[in-house]
């Protein structure tokens, strides 16, 4: 409490000191004449702009190289690498414009600061010049649009036929993963079947749902296309996997999709990064409530053999967690309830 008070007092005093100093300098400059004062200010600020250009530019270059170590410059998916090179192309174009315009701006600010006796140039327009700086950006941007849309359609297009399917369902504040069983088919679901056990609302009346299995981590096979079917139970979440350049919202009531081909196994990445605990992480990228920042998932990229071995150990969700338990009775009740609801709904429509 007393430190709080001291800090506050010190802060207020500091503000007052700066304020008084500024008032005094203002009086002094007035005594010396308004015009003189403005001339000094022009000189000083012009110089400061030039200094800002030089020091700021230096700091920018330094920081870029310093923070490069943290950036994942090569994505661990096929499309991610396309995006990385597209990023570099965009950076090149925008970087050139950035450097030229900032240098011109601050150099001119310094060069053309007010000098007594010099006249500004009356130069209201130049149609030719304006035409050029409309056309050139238009051409550059068209190039970027073409590259972008070409890649976009590749990424969002239909998934390859041999893709494996994983369903990922978001809820406050965790991810559920569901895999099809040996029939390679994800069974039906219904949100009204959701319980504490049956977390994604599997419909066991559908035979295809009976061999589906649930996992606590997402396992995928290296160099094999993966199709994510993305759902949410409650609010909007977002499946973001930074190393894969994957991001797609999970929207309640809808199924969204994203496919990718992982190219580096978790094991290889551990060696590459020198971090034995490395994991590919899924982060929720859409604000979903107070636990948003902790909504993490793990993706394990492994070889086909490792995946098969893992899969063999995953029991069907129905067999392991529902069959013969109270949950099965509860599910039967929910089925009846839903059926009754539907009949009621149908008869309502009939009478109208």
């Amino acid at each position, binding site marked *: 409490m007393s*430190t709080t008070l001291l800090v506050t007092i010190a802060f207020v005093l500091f*503000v007052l000191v700066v*304020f008084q100093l500024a008032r005094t300098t*203002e009086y002094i400059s007035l005594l010396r004449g308004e015009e003189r004062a403005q001339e000094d*200010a022009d000189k000083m*600020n012009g110089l400061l702009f030039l200094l*800002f250009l030089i020091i700021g530019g230096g700091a920018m270059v330094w920081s870029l190289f310093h*923070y490069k170590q*943290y*950036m*994942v410059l090569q994505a661990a998916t096929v499309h991610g690498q*396309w*995006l990385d090179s597209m990023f570099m192309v*965009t950076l090149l*174009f*925008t970087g050139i*414009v*950035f450097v030229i*315009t900032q240098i011109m*701006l601050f150099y*001119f*600010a310094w060069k*053309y*600061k007010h*000098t007594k006796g010099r*006249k*500004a140039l*009356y*130069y*209201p*327009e130049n149609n030719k010049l*304006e035409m050029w*700086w*409309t056309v050139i950006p238009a051409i550059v*941007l068209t190039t970027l649009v073409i590259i972008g*849309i070409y890649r*976009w*359609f590749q*990424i969002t*297009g239909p998934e390859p036929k041999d893709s494996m399917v994983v369903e990922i369902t978001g*809820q*406050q504040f965790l991810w559920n993963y569901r895999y099809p069983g040996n029939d390679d088919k994800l069974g039906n679901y219904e949100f009204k079947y*959701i319980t504490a056990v049956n977390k994604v609302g599997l419909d066991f009346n559908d035979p295809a749902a009976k061999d589906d299995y649930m996992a606590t981590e997402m396992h995928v096979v290296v160099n094999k296309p993966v199709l994510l079917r993305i759902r949410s139970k*409650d*609010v909007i979440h977002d499946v*973001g996997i*930074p190393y894969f350049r994957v*991001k*797609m*919202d999970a929207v*309640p*009531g809808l199924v969204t*999709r994203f496919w990718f081909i992982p190219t580096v196994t978790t094991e290889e990445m551990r060696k590459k990064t020198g971090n034995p605990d*490395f994991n590919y*992480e899924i982060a929720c990228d859409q*604000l979903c*409530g*107070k636990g*948003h*920042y902790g909504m993490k998932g793990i993706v394990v990229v492994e070889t086909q053999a490792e995946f098969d071995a893992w899969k063999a150990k995953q029991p069907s969700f129905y067999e392991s967690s529902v069959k013969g338990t109270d949950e099965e009775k509860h599910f039967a009740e929910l089925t009846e309830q839903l059926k009754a609801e539907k009949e009621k709904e149908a008869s309502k429509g009939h009478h109208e």
Partner: protein
Amino acid sequence: MSSEVSNPVVQPVFTGDSTHHQDSEGEIHENGHHEHHKEYFFTKYVFSQDHKTIGKQFLITGIFWAFVGGLLSVIFRFQLGFPNQAFPFLETLFGKWAPGGIISPEFYYMLVTMHGTILVFFVLTAGLSGTFANLLIPLQCGARDMASPFLNMLSYWFFFAASCVMLTSFFLPEGAADVGWTFYPPLSGVKESAPGAGLGADFWLIGMALFIFSSLLGGLNYITTVLNLRTKGMSMNRLPLTVWALLITAILGLISFPVLLGAAILLLFDRNLGTSFYLDKIFINGHPLDHAGGNAILYQHLFWFLGHPEVYIIILPAFGLVSEVLANHARKPIFGYRAMILSMLAIAILAFIVWAHHMFVTGLNPFVASVFVLLTLLIAVPSAVKVFNWIATIWQGNLRFTPAMLFCVGFVSLFISGGLTGIFLGNSALDIPLHDTYFVIAHFHIVMGVSAFFGMLAGVYQWFPKMFGRFMNNTLGYIHFWITFVGAYMIFWPMHYMGLTGVPRRYYSFDAFQSFNMFGDLNKFITIAAMLVFFAQLLFILNFFYSMFKGRKVTDPNPWKSNSLEWTTKINPGHGNWDGPLPTVYRWPYDYSKNGDEFIPQTVPYKPGEEKLHH
């Protein structure tokens, strides 16, 4: 007509040119009687219908909100810069929201939500447009007041009511809204989804509805005034760019804000009346909801149909203010006046057809997204034209670095930096890795947040003498500019690096992720820079209020040697602006350094043989 002739004070204004007609009735009334009006405290300072007073009311309320909004960001930066470190004074101040001196996640999300809402709507929309449209449109068009001074007054008081509702929401037991300023349902649509999705969210929606009324009443007035009340000779192509910018801003707001009102009302229905516009198949807190058949994405379309034009509602006035101040202090005509207007019009039209670029990763149809990519990147062309024109304006100028001018140069630099990163984000494919990361935060804070602030501050420094008849303290102005300018880059530049690493926005803590937890030092650096910049704004506020009463008095009615009409009034103009007849305009407002004259006000007729430049 006859009454006009019978009043000798009034200059004959009808020239047969219908575009320049004006409200002669009002004028006669003002001229004949305003000396006898008794001005009571309430009618002069509180329920005033004088556009200048209303402008000041918007400005001062805007400054209050900027202080609150900025303070909120400093508080949540504490958590990001010094995670899990106890600051006992936070508990002293905020009690249960910062138990043990550590900000709680609920409080954090409340702070970020309200920070965004306040700065986007209450400061950079109402505080910026409200202030300068009110102050400058009548003065620079040569009108006695707004078309409807009464609606204009209502516009402020609706804003005041909206402010009261928003401010009250902070003191609710569950706190203010905490679902993000974009207010996406179902998080905002289901009361049990978050602590601040309860009463706080209802307050937010009602506050926003009132705010939209305010914005519409103001906008109607601005448009009508510019179109109908320009003085004789003030054709559209002689208007200062400030007025052009504010006119286009008002049109954007008038078309887009009603859509947000609709979205907000439907959301209120979903929350309180059991409808399902945005809700479908939701299982939350252990039970399914009855809501079915709605679509959460619908809200996003409606929201961004306003939300994207809103970005230009914020930045266009800054374009106008900067163009005006830059030309004035460069002592040069603005380069490419017509290109400046055309580019603003192009931006305004495109602003309506790019909204879905905020939604590239919501599962939007890929073809639809590709159309939005094309339109979005197109908008970079007029923006680039503007930047080149500003740089060409200072080239070969004779730059007077008043604080207002410094903020203009800073604005151009920031607008370049923030605008270029938009080219990354607008390209849907590149948006995938960058969406909802710190790269986005860096982009929109630089290009729209800080830039618009710089435009606004340039405007305040420039027109303070007109508002209060006094100057602000220059030395404090210089200190304010340099800390803010350098500080803004220190805060937001490094965020690009975090974004490129994939660090998501709206994270209370990065502890859980090894992909994101290496930026501890950088976050500390950003927090300290943010505190420094906040401190500089306190100096500005001090300077503002001190100078209002004690600043150096203005002695020259045209202290910046400017060409536009507001400087042809008295130093402290009364209601009605000009004592005598309204000024007549003969030329555009940018004849600086022409034929050896440093400046030629708009009221000076062309000399025989003078080059006319289509204006």
